[in-house]
């Protein structure tokens, strides 16, 4: 959301930046919707905190509440796991040339995790009970792939980020199918995070992930693990 707001400001500063202003009738917040480079449309409002409700709308019935809580729970688990993976990678490669690169990606994941912590606390969502497992598994995965060298770490990043992006995309599809307007804030957040994860994925590819011997095997193994983790975290 921070980045969206910044982009919005830049868009306004440039002459002729396309922006549409609309007012929300309830809270009289002025909302700017503008097209950011790449054709995506982003809603930015610096006064977001004054809205009538937070990221998710108050659930109308138990099914919706369960669905939204599942989405938030698994996303929170995902960001937590990604955090630990980067921590593992840093533990091994922290002092090499790739250290700063991994640190940068880790910092972005930390921001994502913070955001989800906020959302979970605000909406009283139960976190997954498997967090200690993802703690250890993530760190071990990050460290062991990093031991294979920079290419190993990048291959792990590519695999995980691809899984996460696919997962976010399916969530976006599901929410869009149900009611895009109702879930607009949640959709924006998931879209933003998905874009970040895609950036990490591309960074991994740029830094010779594919040159790792056994890349295909490792990638598929990691993606299978991610799918299992996602399935389980939604329920437990």
């Amino acid at each position, binding site marked *: 959301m921070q980045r969206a707001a910044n982009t919005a400001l830049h868009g306004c500063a440039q002459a002729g930046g396309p922006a549409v202003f609309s007012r929300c009738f309830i809270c009289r917040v002025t909302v700017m919707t503008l097209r950011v480079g790449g054709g995506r449309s982003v809603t930015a409002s610096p006064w977001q905190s004054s809205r009538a409700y*937070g990221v*998710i709308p108050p659930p*109308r*019935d*138990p099914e919706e509440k369960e669905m939204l809580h599942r989405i938030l729970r698994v996303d929170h688990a995902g960001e937590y796991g990604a955090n630990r993976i980067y921590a593992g990678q840093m533990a091994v490669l922290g002092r090499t040339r790739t250290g700063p690169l991994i640190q940068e990606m880790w910092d972005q994941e930390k921001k994502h995790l913070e955001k989800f912590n906020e959302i979970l606390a605000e909406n009283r969502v139960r*976190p997954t009970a498997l*967090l200690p497992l993802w703690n250890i598994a993530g760190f071990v995965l990050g460290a062991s792939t990093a031991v294979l060298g920079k290419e190993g770490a990048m291959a792990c990043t590519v695999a995980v980020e691809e899984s996460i992006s696919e997962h976010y995309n399916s969530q976006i599809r599901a929410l869009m199918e149900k009611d895009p307007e109702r879930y607009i804030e949640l959709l924006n957040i998931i879209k933003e995070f998905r874009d970040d994860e895609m950036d990490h994925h591309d960074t991994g590819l740029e830094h010779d992930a594919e040159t790792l011997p056994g890349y295909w095997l490792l990638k598929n193994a990691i993606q299978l693990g991610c799918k299992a983790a996602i399935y389980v975290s939604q329920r437990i």
Partner: protein
Amino acid sequence: MASLLRVLRTGRAFRGLGNALTRQSGSLRRGFYGSALRLENESKSDKPPSSSSTMYHEHYQAHPNEKGDSIRSNMSYQDQSGEHGEEYETEEQLQARIFTAALEFVQQYGWSMEAIAAGAETLGLSSASTGMFSNGAGDLVLHFIAQCNSNLTDILTEQHKHVQLGQAETKKTSDFLRDAVECRLRMYIPYIETWPQAMSILLLPHNIPHSLKHLSTLVDDIWYYAGDRSTDMNWYTKRAALTGIYNTTELVMVQDSSPDFQDTWNFLDNRIQDVVNMATTIKQLKNIAGMNQRQ
């Protein structure tokens, strides 16, 4: 367009709230139920915007005598009522009213079908209406528990409001927990003689899932108002600890014969103190082992 709909919905929801809040006197209740129900049934999404904590619990305050289920059944308006014409009362609401009336007779007849039959009779229904209860005694106890939980939530919301308005100091967590558990257990005092029977009813296999659900909502609510916003393993350990404290204190309470249950409250104090000490010790150990600065 969407924002216009939102305005209309909010307006209707506020009217519904207003009607619900005036729903205090018994004889007028049914008329208001009807109109509130009709209003609620008109609008598509009926809960007022309520994700901020105070509004969430204002909603709870507006429906003090119903289980969550009956609120939801209003909204989805499944026509299982078969009730006479004007009051759009669903079966769940009728059951809730019968249970509330039956509570008066629990001291006399215990948590049983007889109490429900007596309650139904005071509402002018035949005692054969107990036929609609397949799990009578269990449902009666569960209804009572749900009612106690929502009363507690109301009280905690009030306190929270006072604190936010600066009219009261924030309590220490251990004091807050102690007061909340004491307040909640005191709701059992009028029924304390028959409470062992109620507890054993709750332990019947078909009642266990529901009683566990009520217990977990209770504990979650108390911790939420105590200020817990954790999103890691602490979420589970805190709730497990409080569940243990609550259950053991409840057991002590049913065997307590001291004046005003003073022994129970002392026991509660000690248990909470135990948990606090354990948490402090763990933190100190973690500090020593250098485990506290992770991430």
